[in-house]
């Protein structure tokens, strides 16, 4: 050890100022990195011991978008308006109905809260009429035609659609905040958000999402029971990022807060999805398999 110190000291004395500066830079960066990692580790420990902390596993189920650390992002929350927090769970299924009525948006009479945190806007219980079916078909056709311009994700980004989460998990929402602000609820050429599947071949446009005009306000009824609007009330957000879902006790982790989203309506346009899930509120992970395997339609 003493010999090493001597060698280091000797080397330092022989080094020119530029070399000393370089070594100082390396040491400084190393120290900064250590402090950063240490700080985050300590913060993580504190976070984990907090009563409201939620599990943050990274298993394969989360990779499919069902876990708290692998959220996909979605529309604005009701609590913060269009320009603030964005959230959308990737629960993978619509969930079972648990209770009629919602205390989140009491103004929406007849809404239903599902076990997976979705708030379903009321729709007629009767089968869709021919007119409703035609209106739904028309919406799909116009959306397909309207969003084809955004087949390239770069074009979408250039037009203001911003990814709300990592390109991880099966799908990412790209939200256009200016469209949301304008409140043009059903513009098929400029929907509030676009959904891109994250495939091995890169992002693949698979559909559009419309947001209601304001918090706790579903959009217009288009196709009756075919086009049911929904919101989410079990999401935790931090700033404009989704931090995950609430824990079993309904609380969020330290530094995040619970939000309810705007009401939304999905229109899945990818042929692999459209036949089975045309307006589905959320897709099971298995639905994305067809996209991954076949790529862009």
């Amino acid at each position: 050890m003493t010999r090493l110190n001597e060698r280091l000291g000797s080397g330092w004395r022989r080094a020119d100022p530029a070399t000393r500066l370089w070594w100082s830079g390396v040491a400084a960066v190393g120290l900064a990195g250590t402090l950063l990692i240490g700080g985050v580790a300590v913060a993580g420990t504190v976070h984990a011991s907090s009563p409201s902390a939620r599990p943050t596993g990274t298993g394969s189920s989360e990779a499919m978008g069902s876990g708290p650390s692998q959220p996909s992002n979605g529309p604005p929350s009701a609590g913060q308006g269009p320009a603030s927090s964005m959230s959308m769970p990737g629960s993978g299924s619509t969930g079972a109905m648990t209770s009629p009525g919602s205390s989140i948006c009491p103004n929406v009479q007849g809404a239903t809260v599902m076990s997976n945190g979705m708030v379903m806007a009321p729709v007629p219980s009767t089968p869709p009429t021919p007119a409703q079916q035609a209106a739904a078909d028309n919406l799909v056709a116009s959306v397909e035609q309207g969003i084809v311009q955004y087949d390239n994700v770069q074009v979408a980004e250039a037009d203001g659609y911003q990814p709300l989460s990592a390109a991880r998990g099966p799908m990412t929402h790209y939200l256009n905040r200016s469209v949301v602000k304008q409140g043009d609820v059903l513009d098929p050429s400029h929907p509030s958000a676009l959904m891109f599947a994250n495939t091995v071949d890169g992002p693949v446009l698979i559909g559009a999402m419309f947001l209601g005009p304001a918090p706790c306000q579903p959009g217009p009824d288009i196709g009756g029971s075919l086009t049911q609007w929904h919101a989410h009330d079990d999401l935790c957000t931090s700033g404009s990022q989704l931090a995950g879902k609430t824990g079993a006790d309904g609380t969020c982790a330290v530094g995040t807060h619970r939000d309810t989203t705007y009401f939304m309506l999905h229109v899945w346009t990818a042929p692999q999805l459209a036949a089975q899930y045309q307006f589905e509120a959320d897709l099971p992970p298995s639905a994305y398999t067809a996209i991954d395997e076949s790529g862009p339609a």
Partner: protein
Amino acid sequence: MNAPAPRRCGVSPRTVQIGLAIIWLFDGILQLQPKMFGPAFADQVIRPSASGQPSLVAWPIDEMARLVSAHPAASNWIFAAVQILIGIGLLRRDTVRPALALSFVWAAGVWCFGEGFGMLLTGAASPLSGAPGAVLLYAVIGILVWPPRIPRVDATQMQPATAGGPVGELGGRVAWAVIWLAMAALWLFPANDGPDGVGSELTSAARSSPTWLARFQTSLAGVVHDHGLTVSIALALLSLVIGIGPFVTRRVTVFLIVGAALSMDYWVLGQSFGGIATGIATDPNTGPLVVLLALAMFPNSAPARRLPAPEPVGGDTPVTESAGRDRRILMPA
């Protein structure tokens, strides 16, 4: 009295080190792009590498992303500083060795956490998109041109830059072969040898390309549509030939040039110039690195002259002994 040494007219180890330094500095500059100081670095650069990975691989990537997400700006400053320090260190002779050593550690970390082991474990890695990973090549080239404490090669000998490194000229050829054989194998992965494997790669690359290039990539994707298997097999065979060629013939140059040219094709068509215009590129991807590797192995053009008689054993200066085409390195006693 010794005759003046002929001027070395090829690529020296120092030239390769400087080339490597420039690329590291370029990486550092890319790291300073505005988007990298926000969530994009963690969300769009690091986390996607975990996609499709085994959970054991995905976990550290996710943790790294979490670390960066917690302090994106501070993390990014550190990332940039390390790469710039490596670049500066390589530019200065006094600090080449520690800079290379630092680069090996950094490259290993980036390959694991930033590139997800070149996505090799996902089954979706493609040479066209840069597999087995640019940062791996940084380390390989760094090893090949690591400056020995005692020169192993007579400076008058017209040998490749790799000849003076710790693994010598043969080590360079082995590295070249391993890389190209790996690429050959990757071309036969199910994700690449499907009917539209190559076409999908090109279409995907077009998303991060300027319009003029995207148009060309899309057209080319149309041309190779449904011929993916044929293209994959052809490229696998070509990669195989490029890899083993330097071992079976003396005309190494041909294989180096073809390999470099093919890599540049990948770089333009499949990597869209490393996506450096996207605002979230972290390196120029593999094309320039393969070219640098080829340069490091490039035999210098001047003919070797007859060497003076070897110095007595035990002398300070190591020499090479030339016996026809077979040159053996004589290490000092």
